[in-house]
C-alpha cells in the first residue's frame, strides 16, 4: 500500500511540473500584451508614449527572453514563491492563500449538499424504479444536470434575494469575522452550485444502485433476514459508492477553479474569479500561480480518490502491490 502511494505521489509531482511548464508556454503564446492592458483601460482615449511602454515592460521584467523568465519563475517556484501580480504588486501566493479557502468553503458545502441530496434522491429513485416517484425524481435530477448555473443562480437571486428578501443576494463575509453572516451569504451560491452537482450524483447513484440491487449477494442478504435499511446501507450502498466517489472526486477537482459563474453571480471572492480577471488582464504571474495551484489540487484529489478506492475495494489495493 505504501509503495503504491509513493509511486502515485511521485507521478503526481511530475504532472504538476508539466502543467506548470505548459501554462507558462501557453500564456506567452496567447496574443495580447499585459503592458498595453496596464497602460490603457477599456476606454483609453490617450495613447501611452512608446518610452512608457518600454519602461513599464522593463519594470515588470517582461523585456527578458521567455527562457530566462521561465528559469526565474521555476527557481522561485521551488521556494514556493509564485511571484507578484503585474497589477498591484501583491504576492500571488498571498492572493491564492486568501482566495482558495473562500472557494473551498463554497465547494465543500455545495458538494456535501449535493452528495447528501443526490445519494438520498438517487436511492429513492432506484427503489421506486418505474413509478411516478422515479419519473419525478429523475426529472428533477435531469433538471439539475441540464439547467446552467447562471439560470438557476439568477433565478434564485431574483426570488429569494429581491422578491422574498430571505437571504442576501450576494457578497461575502469571512467566517472568522461573523459566522452567522457568512452562513447566510453562503446559502444561495452553495445551493445553486449544489443543484447542478445534485443531478450528476443523483443519476449516478440511481444507476449504480440499480445495478447492485440485482446482485446475488443482495438477495442473500435479504434472504438471511436483514432489514431493508441495513441491506441498503451495508450491502448496496457500499458497493454502489465506488462510481459515486469517482464522480464526486472528479467534480470536486473541476469545481476548484471552475466556479467562476457562481462566484460572479453571487459576488463570492473565490479563486475562479481571480483566475478569470487575471486572464482578462494577461496578469501572467497570477494566471500561472492559480492554474498551478488548482491543477496541483486536482491531481492531489485524484490521488486521494485512487487511494480511497484501494480502501473501498481490496482488489485494487492488491493489484497495486504486485
Amino acid at each position, binding site marked *: 500500500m505504501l509503495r503504491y502511494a509513493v509511486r502515485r505521489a511521485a507521478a503526481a509531482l511530475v504532472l504538476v511540473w508539466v502543467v506548470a511548464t505548459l501554462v507558462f508556454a501557453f500564456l506567452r503564446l496567447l496574443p495580447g500584451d499585459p503592458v498595453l492592458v496596464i497602460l490603457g483601460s477599456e476606454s483609453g482615449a490617450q495613447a501611452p*508614449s512608446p518610452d512608457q511602454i518600454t519602461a513599464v515592460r522593463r519594470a515588470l521584467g517582461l523585456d527578458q527572453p521567455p527562457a530566462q523568465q521561465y528559469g526565474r519563475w521555476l527557481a522561485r517556484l521551488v521556494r514556493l514563491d509564485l511571484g507578484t501580480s503585474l497589477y498591484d504588486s501583491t504576492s500571488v501566493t498571498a492572493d491564492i492563500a486568501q*482566495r482558495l479557502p473562500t472557494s473551498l468553503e463554497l465547494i465543500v458545502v455545495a458538494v456535501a449538499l449535493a452528495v447528501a441530496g443526490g445519494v438520498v434522491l438517487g436511492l429513492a429513485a432506484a427503489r421506486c424504479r418505474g413509478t411516478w416517484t422515479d419519473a419525478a425524481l429523475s426529472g428533477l435530477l435531469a433538471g439539475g444536470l441540464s439547467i446552467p448555473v447562471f439560470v438557476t443562480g439568477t433565478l434564485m437571486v431574483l426570488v429569494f434575494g429581491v422578491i422574498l428578501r430571505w437571504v442576501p*443576494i450576494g457578497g461575502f463575509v469571512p467566517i472568522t469575522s461573523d459566522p*452567522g453572516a457568512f452562513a447566510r451569504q453562503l446559502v444561495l451560491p452553495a445551493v445553486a452550485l449544489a443543484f447542478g452537482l445534485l443531478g450528476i450524483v443523483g443519476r449516478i447513484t440511481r444507476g449504480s444502485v440499480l445495478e447492485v440491487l440485482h446482485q446475488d449477494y443482495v438477495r442473500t442478504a435479504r434472504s438471511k433476514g436483514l432489514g431493508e435499511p441495513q441491506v441498503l446501507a451495508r450491502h448496496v450502498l457500499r458497493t454502489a459508492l465506488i462510481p459515486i466517489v469517482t464522480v464526486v472526486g472528479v467534480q470536486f477537482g473541476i469545481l476548484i477553479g471552475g466556479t467562476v459563474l457562481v462566484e460572479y*453571480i453571487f*459576488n463570492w471572492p473565490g479563486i475562479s474569479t481571480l483566475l478569470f480577471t487575471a486572464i482578462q488582464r494577461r496578469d501572467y504571474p497570477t494566471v500561472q500561480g492559480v492554474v498551478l495551484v488548482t491543477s496541483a489540487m486536482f491531481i492531489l484529489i485524484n490521488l486521494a480518490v485512487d487511494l480511497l478506492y484501494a480502501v473501498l475495494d481490496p482488489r485494487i489495493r492488491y493489484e497495486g502491490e504486485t
Partner: protein
Amino acid sequence: MRHIAWRVRLAGAAAAVVAAVWTVGGAPPAPGAPAPPFIFGLSSEPPNLDPHVSNGAAAQTVKMQIYRGLFKLDERGRVVKDLVASYDQPNPTTYVFHLRPNLRFSDGSPLTSADVVFSLQRIADPKTGAYLKKRFGDIESVDAVDPQTVKVVLHSPDAVFITLLALPQAAVVSKAFTTAHNGDLKTATMGEGPYVLSAYQRGVQVSVTRNPNYYGAPAKMAEIRFVFYPDDNSRVAALQSGAVDMIEYVPWQDITAIKTNPQFGYQGTNGPFMYLTFNVTQPPFTDARVRRALGYAIDRDAIIKTAFFGRGGPIYGLPIPPGSLAYDAAATRYYTYDPGKAKQLLAEAGFGNGFTATLLSTAQYGMHKDTAQVVQQNLNAIGEHITLALPDWPTRVAAGNDGRYQFSVMGTVGDYNDPDFLSFFLHSGPTYYADSAGYVDQAMDSMLDQARATLDPAKRKALYVQIEQRELAEAPYIFLTWREQGYAYRKGVEGFHLLPGFQAFYSPYEFETMTVAR
C-alpha cells in the same frame, strides 16, 4: 444500528449550531451603534489604486475620494480651484500656483510645493505609466518657488492645461510617503482627499472613512463602502434588494425600469460613444469615399436599439457634446442613414460589386460585439462581405496596436468637454488601438496644435470649425452612437450631481457632499 443513531445525533447537533448562528447573526444592530456605511455598488474591483495610472472608471471612483489635485470639477462640471488658492499666468506659457495655507495629507504631514513638484515629475516619469504623461510632455520646467508656490513653465501655450490639472489623474501625492514605498502606490494609499482608505477586503470591497485632515468641509457621510459587483444583474439586484444604496454603470436594459420606479433615483447622460476606426493603409479603406460611404450605410438607431436598449443617441457626424466650445449642430448631422448614397459612393470608389473585409471587435464587451453585428448586417445588406473577428479584449488591443486589422469597432469617452479631445483621435502618433491605423495628416496636425496653443476662445472656435470640416471630408473615423452612462440610487440619497457629457465619470468628485436618509 448504534452508529447510525450516533450520526443522526451529530447531524441534529450541526443543524442546531447552524440555526443558532443564523439567529445570532440576524439580530438587529444594538441601539447607539455608529451609522451604517453608505454602500456603493462598484462595477469592478480596481486593478490598483495608483492615482496617476488610468485603470477604469470604477477604480477612479475610489481614488477620487482619497486623492485631490490642484484643480477639480464642480457639481456643474466647471473647472474650479481645489488645492490651489489662486494662480497667476504672467505670460502665456508660465503658471504660478499658490497653494491653500496649512494643507495636510491624511496622515497629518504638511502638503507643500515639494509634493506638487514631485507629483508632476512622477507623472512625467515613463516608469510610472501615468495616463497624462504624454500631455505633460508640454511641461518645460516645474519648480518650487517657496513652500506655498509652484511655478510651471510650458514649451508652448496650452488652452487646456488647467483643465488637465483638474483631472483625477493629475492628483497630488505625498513625496515622503511615495518615496517610503519605493514609488509604488498600487496598494499603499495616502492622499489629501475627503476620505482615507480604511479597509480593503480583496475581491469583495474597499472602504473609505472621513479624513479628519481634509482642508474642506468634512465629508457628510462618515464612511463609504465600495462593494464590487462585476455582474450587471447582480449589481441591479443589489440595489433592488436594498443591499447597496447606489450603483454605477446602470445596465441599459434596466434603466427604464429603475427610472419609472419611485423607490429609486436615476441620473444619466450621453457621455461615452461608439465609433469605427480604419486601417487607412489597407484597401478598401485607403479611399476616403469608402470610409464616407460607411457614414451613410450604418443605421445608428438599430445600434442603439440592439446594443443599448434604446439608451443612447445617434451620431451622424462628430461626437461633440452640446455646450462644448466647438459644438456645431450641422457637424453632428452631417450624415444620414442612406444606403443608396452609400452604394453610390462605393461605386465611385470602384467597389460597385461590394468589398470584402474583416471587422475587428471583441466578444468580451457585449456593446462592442452587438455594435459590430449591426455594422456587419448593414454592410452585408448593401452587398459587402463582412466577417467579424471577436477575440478577447487584450487580443483585440494588441491587434489594434499592431495595426493588424482592416476596420474596427471602438468605444471611448473624451477626457474633457473641451474640443481639444479631438486631438487624441486626429493627431498623428504611434499606432494605437483606439485610433485609426496609419492616419497621418500634417495639415490636421498643425491645425490641432494651433488650436491648442490659441488661448482666445473665439479664435479657437473658428479653428475647430475648420478641423471638424476636414475630419468630415476625410472621414478617418466614422462615429456611430452615444451610449448613456447612468447612476441609480435609492430614495433618501441626496446631493448627487451627474456631470454633463464626457465628464460623467468625474461625478464622484462630489460624493463628499452626498447625504443619505435612512
